[in-house]
């Protein structure tokens, strides 16, 4: 399956991937509204890890054998036929078990809604927002 891969050597640590991820997962999908007017505010599912000059964006790896799926106490995280690890917000109780077990630190805690937020590979777009908006092509969406 296609996944988002990071090219550490090209990541400039601008964090525009986070800005556009948040926007894509907001109600309005309007960048200014999403950041300034929507409450609770959406949260980004990608996080840039940085220790200058090294930086790279981390998001759900959609693992072949996802430990989060095994660990989830309510069955909110499942692996669908395409291989995508999907998260059902309705079922999520915010126990943070997935946060604890994920080896990549990918699930993010939405403290206001007490739910986990994780990369869904932008189902409404052909290419995930983080990949498309990266100004230095540090993220690629491809099959490997």
């Amino acid at each position, binding site marked *: 399956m296609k996944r988002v891969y990071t090219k550490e*050597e*090209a*990541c*400039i*640590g*601008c*964090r*525009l991937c*986070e*800005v*556009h991820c948040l926007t894509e997962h907001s109600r309005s999908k309007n*960048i*200014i509204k999403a*950041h*300034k007017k929507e409450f609770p505010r959406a949260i980004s599912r990608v996080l840039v890890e940085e220790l*200058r*000059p090294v930086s790279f964006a981390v998001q759900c790896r959609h693992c072949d054998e996802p430990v989060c799926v095994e660990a989830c106490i309510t069955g909110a995280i499942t692996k669908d036929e395409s291989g995508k690890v999907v998260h059902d917000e309705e079922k999520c109780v915010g126990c943070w078990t997935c946060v604890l077990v994920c080896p990549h630190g990918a699930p993010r805690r939405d403290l206001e809604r007490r739910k986990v937020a994780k990369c869904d590979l932008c189902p409404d777009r052909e290419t995930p927002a983080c990949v498309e*908006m990266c*100004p*230095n*092509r*540090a993220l690629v969406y491809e099959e490997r």
Partner: protein
Amino acid sequence: MKTYQLPEVKIERDKDRCIDCQVCVRQCAFEAHKVDEDGDVYSEDEKCVACQRCVSLCPTNALTIKDNTPFVKDNANWTAETQKYIWKQAETGGVLLTGMGNPKPYPIYWDHMLLNASQVTNPSIDPLREPMELRTYLGSKPDKIDIKMVDGEPVLNTKLAPQLMVKTPILFSAMSFGAVSYSVCEGLARASKELGTFWNTGEGGLPQNLYEYGPNTIVQVASGRFGVHSEYLDAAAAIEIKIGQGAKPGIGGHLPGEKVGPVVSRTRMIPEGSDAISPAPHHDIYSIEDLSQLIYSLKEATEYTKPISVKISAVHNVAAIASGIARAGADIIAIDGFRGGTGAAPTMIRDNVGIPIELAIAAVDTRLRDEAIRNRVSVIAAGGFRNSADVIKAIALGADAVYLGTAALVAMGCHVCQMCYTGKCNWGIATQDPYLEKRLNPDVAAERLFNLVSGWSHEIAEMLGGMGLNAIESLRGNRLHLRSIGLSTEEMDILGLQAAGSPMA
């Protein structure tokens, strides 16, 4: 000391649009954008260099950088700029430094030249339907050729000097690794390979990882001899002896030790952290005869397989110097006009020394023709080519090809803020800081350069076709395809141009 310098730009932040994402804060190496303890982003005008990096990356278009030239009482002599320079020097006691090419409003002769086109009496050519040759060969051409017939077929009997074949008359100018980042070098090298042209290492040596691009590389031998060794010469397609540079004729170079990291150190063959100082002259060249010795040393070293170029800046006596260089045995003469760029130069030299490339091309071409030695050398013109029209006019004036430096940097993101010498280039171009250098992805750089030169080449083909020509070589030195507008008779005389409206002679 309290500075008397006034902010030259104003950063306008539209607070309705700003989402406090801090992209501008992270992108500005000059620290013009800051974030306070509450997470509010604010800006400090006096630190801004107007490189437009923040404006380009701001996801909500909340930023505008505006001209804020300080108001000083109306005075044509003591302008804001002249006063700024004095304040700066009164505070530092140093030489004024700057980057990029001469920005002064000297005449741009390209804008006083008009191209011809065919109408009725000779048909124009559509380059999309008919063959159009932009290919040319750079190197020494024989005075005459001797052909013998073998089995009814003509066979060339004359031994030709080595030539550089370029698929378009546009090459990338010398920009040294050290002054520019590794990503720039890689971008230029990859684009040159794709385009069938050449890039030039400048005096910084050839980074080991780029040896595979040797067949598209011109290597420089400059007064500092940085990174010059036999594999370096062998790897290249041609060798260029750098005598001068348009932005700073008559002076050498200085790469500060801070920019000499491990890779630059290895490439230049100097200790890490040491200043790389290029002397103003080559200490072994004090005459045309000395130059000839170096040219032939390099030819011997490479067994006469590569053309040798000599690069000079366009100065008052450029035509006579070029004649000397041709007679010294050079295959190519590169001439860099006063608008040529640099990573660092004293402001007074950049802005006041040298002559425009337009006049230099015409003067050199005329002189070499008058002396009947034009065929012995190819002429590459450099120094501020802005678009394909400048390129085609340069060729009509007498150049064989042109070098692009600044235009190539602009293609890669440079916004000509002239702060190259600080090493803090926010675009990842004129820096060795690993954090900043990452901002130029070589994939993106190579693609943008390829696109630029492809675009210009298409335009050149269109303009050539319009003139009824089907080969760039048919235009070279064909000044009848140019007319001047708004120039004095002396200027027209030097350029060898007739006024717009005069008939074909």
